[in-house]
């Protein structure tokens, strides 16, 4: 089965073609157009994102088909991101994809964006399969999931306030690194001294008890602590790298510890990190270091961790293979619940 994927939930217009053979997805093409316009605003402007998607969607889809040596006729089905995300942005890819499917009589499947992130490593890692613990960290989400099987997700924890990626972006802005700030912050942190600035590790102590926040995260207080230190700094230029390092070490320690303890308690041989923050190499390195050789940590390459249509096609292909279909009435949703998500108590 050959699936065309379309993703437009935020500020990347993406299309991809994947092939599903005996349950294994393989990547044939992925095209990602990153909108640069939002840089001058220091964040994504929804209306501008939607406008840019509308002029990009056709060329991006055509390019993905072309690079895969495919045509609309040789595609078996279409998978589109249905949510969560910016509704106006989602709408463009979803309407384009569902109309292509409806007009050409191909099956359509609406995909949950975060389920897409869960499938990303499967495109490169042939051994990647549940059960595993997933840490999904992006600009909009921070989720710790127990993936018992594909389509069966137990929510362990999530952020109580800012998403991890949001915290990286906000701190990068505080340090004058521009937007998006994840990559420049990581580069700067690599040159900073560890321990020069020690910031709080929010909710890390809760890991020891059995309280409601045992697996949850919080990044708002950490960001404020950095802000306070930046304001007190008398020589920000000299301290910028150390501050970046201090923030990154704090954020990563909490993410790594909670993920590692979850994997150990569940006794799984596999963990994955997905989402835009998974592009941070220090995060993956620290988790691998922490878990040693007992647990393998699977992380997709950066272009499959940022928002992309290949992961949407992969998750969609799995659902299509189970016989699931979306109708032409499919609509975007900013708060789509993850399908197959069990509550923490379940």
């Amino acid at each position, binding site marked *: 089965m050959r699936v065309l994927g379309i993703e437009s939930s935020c500020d990347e*217009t993406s299309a991809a073609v994947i092939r599903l053979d005996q349950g294994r997805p393989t990547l044939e093409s992925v*095209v*990602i*157009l*990153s*909108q*640069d*316009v939002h*840089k*001058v*605003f220091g964040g994504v*402007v929804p*209306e*501008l994102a*939607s*406008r*840019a998607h*509308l*002029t*990009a*969607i*056709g*060329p991006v*889809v*055509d*390019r993905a088909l072309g690079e895969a040596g495919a045509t*609309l006729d040789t595609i078996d089905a279409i998978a589109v991101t249905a949510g969560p995300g910016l509704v*106006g942005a989602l*709408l*463009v890819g*979803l*309407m*384009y*994809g*569902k*109309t*292509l499917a*409806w*007009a*050409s009589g191909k099956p359509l499947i609406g995909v949950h964006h975060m389920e897409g992130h869960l499938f990303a490593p499967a495109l490169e890692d042939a051994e990647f399969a549940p059960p595993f613990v997933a840490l999904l960290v992006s600009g909009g989400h921070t989720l710790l999931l127990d993936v018992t099987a594909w389509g069966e997700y137990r929510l362990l924890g999530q952020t109580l306030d800012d998403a991890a990626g949001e915290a990286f972006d906000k701190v990068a802005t505080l340090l004058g690194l521009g937007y998006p700030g994840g990559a420049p912050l990581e580069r700067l942190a690599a040159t900073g001294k560890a321990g020069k600035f020690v910031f709080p590790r929010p909710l890390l102590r809760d890991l020891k008890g059995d309280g409601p926040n045992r697996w949850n995260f919080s990044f708002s207080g950490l960001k404020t602590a950095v802000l306070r230190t930046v304001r007190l700094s008398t020589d920000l230029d000299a301290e910028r790298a150390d501050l970046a390092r201090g923030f990154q070490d704090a954020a990563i320690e909490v993410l790594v510890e909670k993920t590692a303890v979850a994997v150990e308690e569940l006794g799984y041989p596999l963990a994955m990190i997905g989402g835009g923050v998974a592009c941070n190499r220090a995060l993956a390195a620290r988790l691998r270091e922490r878990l040693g050789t007992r647990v393998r940590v699977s992380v997709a390459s950066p*272009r499959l961790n940022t928002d992309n249509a290949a992961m949407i096609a992969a998750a969609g292909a799995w659902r299509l293979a189970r016989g699931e279909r979306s109708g*032409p*009435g*499919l*609509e*975007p949703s900013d708060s789509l619940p993850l399908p197959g998500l069990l509550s923490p108590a379940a």
Partner: protein
Amino acid sequence: MWLALETSSDRASVAVGHPGQVLSEVSLEGARRHAGALPRLIDEALGQAGVELSVLEAVVLGDGPGSFTGLRVGAAVAKALVRSHGMSFHTTPALAAIAWAAAPLPEERVLAVVNALRGEVYAAEYRFPEGRLEVLQEPTVWLPERLLADCPVPDVLCGIVPEGLAERLAEWQSGRHPRTVRGVATAGALLALAARRDGVTMVADPAGWEPRYGRPAEAQAKWERDHGQKLPDSPGHLS
């Protein structure tokens, strides 16, 4: 055979027919329902006309101004249809469709107005001489007082005039009052315009085409005011 799509207002409508001839027309109220319902509406219109999607040779779309989201719903559907079935793609302003539906005489000047929110209106002025569409004023966003001051009294005023503006329009100087006709753009009117010279425009590059939004995004307008320059063009980068 042509398909007409109009989604710029609360009413989505779809028509099937030929330029100047409507074989079927269906519509739906409620802007939030457009995205979910549009394929079904197209199916209904095709069914009522007794034709298959594959026989369509052209799409005509009301290109605005109007609801940003509504315009994108119609535009994304039209682009996908054009891409998958190789149809030609034509557009005309929703305001022209409103003006035509007011059934003016050939020499009458028709001012079509829709609510642009934030105290403004989108307005355009047309005339419909024999077999032709004449544009007297392209669709533009206006403050009501500027419209009253700068625009000569038309023969026909049509569209949906926002609350508060109707009374002020009655103060139009000169003592002459335009005939007023309430109405929204419909897909059937787009097919009628397609039969007129200059009534619709054929789009050479459907993929790169954008609707007539009527005004920039708010954040862009603010940035341009603050910086005294146009927002730099940034097509994005591919990876």
